[in-house]
């Protein structure tokens, strides 16, 4: 048994509210100490955000970004789990993949963008690849590390019960790595999201939150910049806390009952 004390759902929500309040407070202090056009205050940005949300442009940017995120993140997870599980069975392959990840991971996504633009042309493709690349690393690493710690008895027990290789992967390895997989998926989501916004800021293509942010910056619209940053932060938090956390609770239900 560990000292883990699970706070109740109510306390968790309160903590989130306190965190949000603290961040907004810091922001407002910065706004007070800087001229209005460099750093607008919280209330005015809120008003602006409310207006933005009702515009068609905003919805187009939102859906554009989310579609890219979905494709990039989705394929990163699929490949990450696949390679991770293969790495769990083939030890040498695992080490090679790990080494490659350590090397490639050190290159920031904004250094990849020009290269992919030229190789893949304009369009959603380079953005999706940049997202997938940056999300692939943590997903694959976490699955690989988790396969290392699958219990021997779990494997032996399945073998004795006559499990086929495929049974083994599907019914033993996959559920055994699921907790780490979900942690990895949450890490990967953070990476994917940052890569999405960065890439959209750099590539002036299509509708997207990153592009709105860059455009607002370009036209001296700091209110727009802060409204966009706010949108980006709120959205990421919602996706992480509502969608991914709920998924986690469903998939790892056995840990919570």
């Amino acid at each position, binding site marked *: 048994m560990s000292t883990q004390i699970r706070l109740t759902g109510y306390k968790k929500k309160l903590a989130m509210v306190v965190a949000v309040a603290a961040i907004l407070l810091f922001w407002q202090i910065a706004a007070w100490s*800087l001229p*209005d*056009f460099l750093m607008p205050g919280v209330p005015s940005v809120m008003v602006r955000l409310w207006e933005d949300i009702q515009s068609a442009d905003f919805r187009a940017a939102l859906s554009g970004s989310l579609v890219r995120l979905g494709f990039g993140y989705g394929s990163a997870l699929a490949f990450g789990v696949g390679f991770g599980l293969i790495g769990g069975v083939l030890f040498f392959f695992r080490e090679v993949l790990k080494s490659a990840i350590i090397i490639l991971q050190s290159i920031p996504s904004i250094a990849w963008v020009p290269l992919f*633009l030229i190789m893949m042309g304009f369009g959603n493709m380079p953005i999706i690849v940049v997202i997938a690349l940056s999300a692939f690393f943590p997903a694959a690493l976490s699955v690989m590390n988790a396969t290392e710690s699958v219990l021997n008895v779990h494997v032996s027990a399945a073998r004795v019960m006559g499990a086929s290789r495929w049974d083994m992967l599907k019914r033993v390895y996959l559920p055994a790595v699921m907790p780490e997989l979900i942690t990895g998926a949450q890490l990967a989501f953070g990476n994917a999201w940052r890569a999405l916004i960065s890439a959209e800021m750099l590539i002036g293509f299509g509708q997207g939150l990153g592009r709105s942010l860059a455009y607002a910056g*370009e036209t*001296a619209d*700091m209110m727009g910049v802060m409204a966009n940053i706010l949108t980006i932060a709120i959205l990421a938090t919602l996706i992480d806390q509502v969608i991914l956390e709920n998924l986690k609770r469903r998939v790892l239900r056995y840990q919570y009952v």
Partner: protein
Amino acid sequence: ADKFKIGYLRVMDDAQAIAAYEGGFYKKHGLDVELVEFKSGTDLIKAIVGGQLDTGVLGFTNAASWSSKGADLKVVGGAQHGFHAIVVRDDSGIKNVADLKGHTLASQKEGSTADTVLKGVVLKEAGLKPEDLSIMGVSPQVAVQSLVGKRVDAAFLFEPQARIAQLVAPVTQIYEVGEVWPFPCMVVIASGDTVKNRKEEVWKSLDAQREAIELLTNKPEEGAKLIASYFIAEPTLKTLKHGDVPREDIIRDAIKSQTFSPKLTEQELDRMQEIADIMQAQGSLKTRDGKPFDVSQIIDLEWQEARKL
């Protein structure tokens, strides 16, 4: 005393700021200058507004955008006229601007001066709407590489990228906005505070840059030697048809194609107002009271009047 901080962008349009530094003209005028590079006018103007920089050489539209929001900014001198070329791939079959319809064009960042002029002047005069073609907002280097890599059919470029593109790729220039619709693209911008408190130093820097402009205009060979390494890293550039060309030659030609001028003339002031109106029409410039933006409120011509240009 404090160093005098001048911000610049690594583009030919800012050549006089770089040349004045490399040629020691600032020092000659008794000014201890620190040259700070920026990736975009957007960042540069923020540094001026935030008081981190004294002056900067950058697109006029930046000053318009920010002062419309309430920033205290002054345009204190001219720098360079907007020479932006449209180059097209030879195999694209594009002969003039109107042919761009349905093609892809690499331009600069959305909302930048170049982007404003492209949409508000170049395309408009050819009878095109921005939606008629796909415009990609990228950095000039990526634009050139996209041309080479056949990812776009055309690009809207300034120097020296327009020249480099023509040397390394099978592309042809079909349009030059400077010939058709000359406008003051780059200007010297300072914050109101600096103009008030460090007037003398601002003037010294303008004097130094004026001398650099004279050098660039009269002796482009010498100017090229000072600034070539800022734009091309290797001593020579591998070209498509002419083999290895020394970088100084390319830069010299690029300098020659530009019009630098320390002075803002009457026509130029009118053009600036025109651009501001275009921006307002495009929605990238919004005044707080919704009235038309008056450019004259950010112009401070005291220096050029004192020097009797």
